[in-house]
């Protein structure tokens, strides 16, 4: 192509503290072309998106608009340059109506202030174009994740952008909604809009895009014509090694039922969820974001109250809404968001590790520092934690090592049931494999593991059984042999008969 790219990056780098998120990456977006950005979690895709949208400023390198260097001082500058973004996490204003969310800052104006009627009809028109039924006057609070995503898409479309960036826009959408979105995206592409498409679903990249840029650990690996490569090639570029090594799953024999959940219901969140997890087994809980997986884990662990049903650990019924009772019964929960829920970021490594097992390091009413330190050292070695001193605060560690600290904290209690929520989110490939090995070993030693994961390869690679949730219900249970990317996604998007 001998055109000038609308928007391009030239040798751009960006670091956050010690972590070099993006290293000398170049990227060219041409009008009328859909460009895919591939890479694993933590490869730097979201950082690239945020540089293009003006949220982050690159440490070095240049952004070029129509071939001319520009600086984006903030999202407003990027928007003025014609860049619209559909973010991975919906960024809505819960208190405001759907139409105001779409047109915030650009509301149609009449002589006397905002023209609500024009805004309402413009929003309705966008929804028609997307083929969805949403009420423009409804507040954004209470929308499902899928509907929030659709509002985001409508927002981006309403900008009439020259460059449309989509960061995992389809993660929460059903097949039909994805098809509509792609219809609209293709129409935009034909009108000369440049698209940048970030997704974990390879088949979507192959359907929509002409070229693909692959990132690994923040660096550019390859730029390919989609027509010239296969999905397997792309995976190899993304991972940089054979996939099997990432999932060192040992075969184990499932023992007795350790965790028994029956007809668990929390009104409006999840309904009638029943399953067992046996000793020595890794059971994955798959589903789309917002399907209610983390909420089930929170209820089982006693953080949230449940309205009906029961939870048994090793045959004993658990008192509802009591994390203390759950811990005493041998449950452990490694939460989804380690920075907010899993760690006290300013506290030292040893104190974080000792936190959940204070009873074990107690001397009378006081905490014994030597005992705490011995416990922390023991687990740090076992988990191959990379640290300088045990007294360093955990916020100096990398994401992967932070996750190991959370794991150590819970493993130090020697739980009989371990619930891990997105255990490898945002950590690098090497540590990811180590976390997987650890989970596998734990299962091998007779711990019952319930793993919530949004990463299909992880689900398929690690689980003995896969439970799939859709809109608050358990819709499928698949054995390791039956679980494929297609069967899990079909169930997760509500397309399966079950």
């Amino acid at each position, binding site marked *: 192509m001998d055109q000038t790219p609308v928007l391009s990056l030239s040798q751009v780098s960006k670091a956050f503290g010690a972590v070099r998120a993006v290293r000398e990456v170049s990227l060219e977006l041409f009008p009328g072309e859909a460009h895919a950005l591939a890479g694993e979690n933590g490869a730097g895709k979201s950082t690239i998106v945020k540089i293009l*949208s003006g*949220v982050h400023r690159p440490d070095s390198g240049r952004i070029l608009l129509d071939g001319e260097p520009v600086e984006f001082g*903030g*999202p*407003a500058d990027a*928007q*003025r340059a014609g860049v619209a*973004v559909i*973010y991975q996490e919906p*960024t*809505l*204003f*819960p*208190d*405001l109506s759907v139409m*105001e969310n779409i047109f*915030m*800052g*650009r*509301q149609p*104006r009449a002589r*006397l*202030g*905002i023209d609500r009627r024009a805004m309402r009809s413009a929003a309705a028109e966008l929804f028609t174009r997307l083929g969805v039924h949403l*009420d423009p*006057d*409804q*507040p954004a*609070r*209470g*929308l*499902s994740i899928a509907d929030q995503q659709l509002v985001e898409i409508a927002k981006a479309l309403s900008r009439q952008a020259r460059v449309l960036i989509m960061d995992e826009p389809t993660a929460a959408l059903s097949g039909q909604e994805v098809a509509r979105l792609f219809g609209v995206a293709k129409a935009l592409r034909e009108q000369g809009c440049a698209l940048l498409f970030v997704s974990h679903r390879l088949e979507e990249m192959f359907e929509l895009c002409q070229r693909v840029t692959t990132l690994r650990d923040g660096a550019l690996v390859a730029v390919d014509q989609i027509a010239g490569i296969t999905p397997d090639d792309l995976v190899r570029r993304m991972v940089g090694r054979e996939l099997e090594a990432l999932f060192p799953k040992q075969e184990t024999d499932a023992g007795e039922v350790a965790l028994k959940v029956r007809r668990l219901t929390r*009104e*409006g*969140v999840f309904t009638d969820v029943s399953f067992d997890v046996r000793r020595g087994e890794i059971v994955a809980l798959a589903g789309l974001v917002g399907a209610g997986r983390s909420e089930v884990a929170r209820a089982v662990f006693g953080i949230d109250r449940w309205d009906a049903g029961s939870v048994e650990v090793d045959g004993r019924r658990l008192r509802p809404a009591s994390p203390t009772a759950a811990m005493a019964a041998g449950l452990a929960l490694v939460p989804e968001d380690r920075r907010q829920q899993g760690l006290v970021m300013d506290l030292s490594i040893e104190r974080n590790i000792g936190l959940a097992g204070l009873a074990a390091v107690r001397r009378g009413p006081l905490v014994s520092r030597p005992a705490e330190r011995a416990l922390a050292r023991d687990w740090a070695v076992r988990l191959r934690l990379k640290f300088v001193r045990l007294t360093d605060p955990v916020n100096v560690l990398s994401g992967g090592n932070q996750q190991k600290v959370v794991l150590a904290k819970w493993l130090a209690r020697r739980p009989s049931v371990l619930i891990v929520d997105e255990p490898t989110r945002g950590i690098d490939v090497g540590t990811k494999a180590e976390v997987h090995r650890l989970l596998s070993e734990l299962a091998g030693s007779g711990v019952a593991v319930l793993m919530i994961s949004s990463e299909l390869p992880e689900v398929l690679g690690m689980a003995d059984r896969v439970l799939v949730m859709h*809109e*608050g219900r358990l819709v499928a249970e698949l054995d390791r042999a039956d679980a494929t990317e297609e069967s899990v996604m079909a169930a997760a998007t509500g397309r399966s008969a079950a």
Partner: protein
Amino acid sequence: MTATATRTEAGRRNGGRRLVDRVARVRELGIVVALGVLFGVTGAANPGFLTYASLRDILLNSAIVALLAVGQTLVVITRNVDLSVSSVVGLSAFGGALVLADNPGVPIPLVIAGCVVLGAACGAVNGLLVGVAKVPALVATLGTLYAFRGIDYAWAGGRQVNAADMPEGFLALGTRSVLGVPLPALVALAVLLVAGWMLGNLRAGRELYAIGSNPEAAVLAGIRVRRRIVAAFVANGALAGLAGVMWAARFGTVDATVATGKELDVIAAVVVGGVAIFGGSGTVYGAALGALLLSTITSALAVLRVDALAQTAINGALLIAAIVLDRLLALRVAAALRRRRFRDAR
């Protein structure tokens, strides 16, 4: 799905929306009802409460707090708070009174404008601290609460300006009525209507709600968050400056302690008026009604001969009741939305 089922589904959807709408509006309605009950009960116990003179007093007493509550709402909507308003009122009241006392010939409109500008300048200091220097509003305005009051003390040096020192024409502004309504109440009403219209119909107004509702999303939406927050503080400061001159005109006697502690009355009025303390929702109408309700309660308790000491406790209890009610309503709405979303999903 059969046709009937579809229809009931749609009906339920509408029901859900109606519920949400109703609850959203219920705060203002609730206050109006509470005011009605209060007037009814107190009037029945003591008919003197419903005379023109009594009602006029209530309006006069609530005008300044209502004006401040309107300004405070602008700030609270953005998920901030301005504790320094009472000090700004004090500074403006004393400054205005002093200028009038020392320069008898100075035009009154010029003094009023000067006080508004002084207030706006104080607001700008708050706005820059919060919006630009990113100091949490609670801390920044607590600091300026003391700082502005300190300037006031230093300026006054123990001096007091009395009604006799100020021109008649100025003092008349505080008590004069137009068509039977006291002038300060009319000023507060005018400010209320303008602010209410701006919040509802201008992009800038809607952006204040957006900032309070989800600050990060506001940045991503390209809203100039910093500028808007500074503007909200400046507007609030300007209204506090205006409230200061009104105070001087109404009470006539002004020293450096004017309006000490008033910031809590103002925030109470805002919260009772249904403005979410964490931003994003609420109206200036609610806040002004909240101010009216609180000062009516004070008057009613006095008329009913309730001990002055108990009045403070009763005001506190009402504030807590308002917040608990708010919380319960929010939970109900959240549950309703959750159920409705669930139904729609199927």
